[in-house]
């Protein structure tokens, strides 16, 4: 699979981003998660938040204008709660907001994502629009930090 968990950027700035990921049966790993009950893995909801955070960090670096963007990875997770499942044909709407920056250059984010569902019955009013729900799929805090390699 391609390791891209953001399909559309709905909003993006130096402090906040909102993104969309579509979930489709074309994603083969769903056959294993789970057989007969296909749902987006919780860690992929987290990865969608992480990739959304990276967009915010890029915007932040651009706003600061000092040199090349830094490559940041997930360094920690805190109180991340899972709620509703997200199934093929549904979408995940992620929102990440910068909480604070720490002394070592790490950035802490608050993140949450809701499930997007198309209406079962298409009416003239709803035709063409996905009905978003307030059903939360995941919410919590996470930290992005610089890559750390070990020298040999």
């Amino acid at each position, binding site marked *: 699979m391609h390791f891209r968990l953001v399909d559309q950027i709905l909003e993006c700035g130096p402090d906040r981003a909102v993104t969309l990921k579509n979930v489709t049966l074309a994603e083969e790993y769903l056959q294993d998660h789970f057989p007969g009950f296909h749902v987006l893995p919780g860690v992929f909801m987290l990865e969608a938040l992480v990739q959304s955070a990276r967009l915010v960090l890029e915007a932040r670096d651009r706003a600061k204008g000092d040199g090349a963007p830094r490559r940041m990875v997930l360094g920690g997770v805190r109180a991340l*709660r899972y709620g509703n499942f997200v199934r093929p044909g549904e979408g995940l709407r992620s929102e990440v907001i910068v909480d604070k920056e720490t002394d070592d250059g790490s950035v802490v984010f608050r993140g949450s994502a809701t499930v997007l569902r198309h209406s079962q019955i298409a009416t003239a009013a709803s035709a063409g629009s996905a009905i978003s729900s307030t059903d939360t799929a995941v*919410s919590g805090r996470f930290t992005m930090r610089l890559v750390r390699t070990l020298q040999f």
Partner: protein
Amino acid sequence: MSHDEIFKKVQGVLVDALGVDDDEVTPTARLTTDLHAESIDFLDIVFRVEKAFGFKIGQGELFPDNINDPKYVTDGVVNAAGLALLKEKMPHVDFTAFSADPKLEKVSEVFTVDSLVKFVESKLKAGAPA
């Protein structure tokens, strides 16, 4: 263990479980509305309180079990029988505000940090087994 010592330990449990800061965990803070606790957090809190204080908590003892029974709930509103049952099962909770608008979906809002502290105090006083 003094009231203050119990409060500090309960504060620690909530900070660890909910990822909130010390100063957000005040006695009147509601676990759901103010500290953003969700249903899975209640299980985490039960586990951590058991560990912190060394006693066992039975199912439904700290937080209500599913009271969604027609005997106690009518059209999403908790009736007099239901309210009486809740008060009996959870003496550590203050149901005054809830009684004014007893919607089932709001029942989790009754839990304050103080109700958790009161629960621990009564368990310790009763010499609860680990």
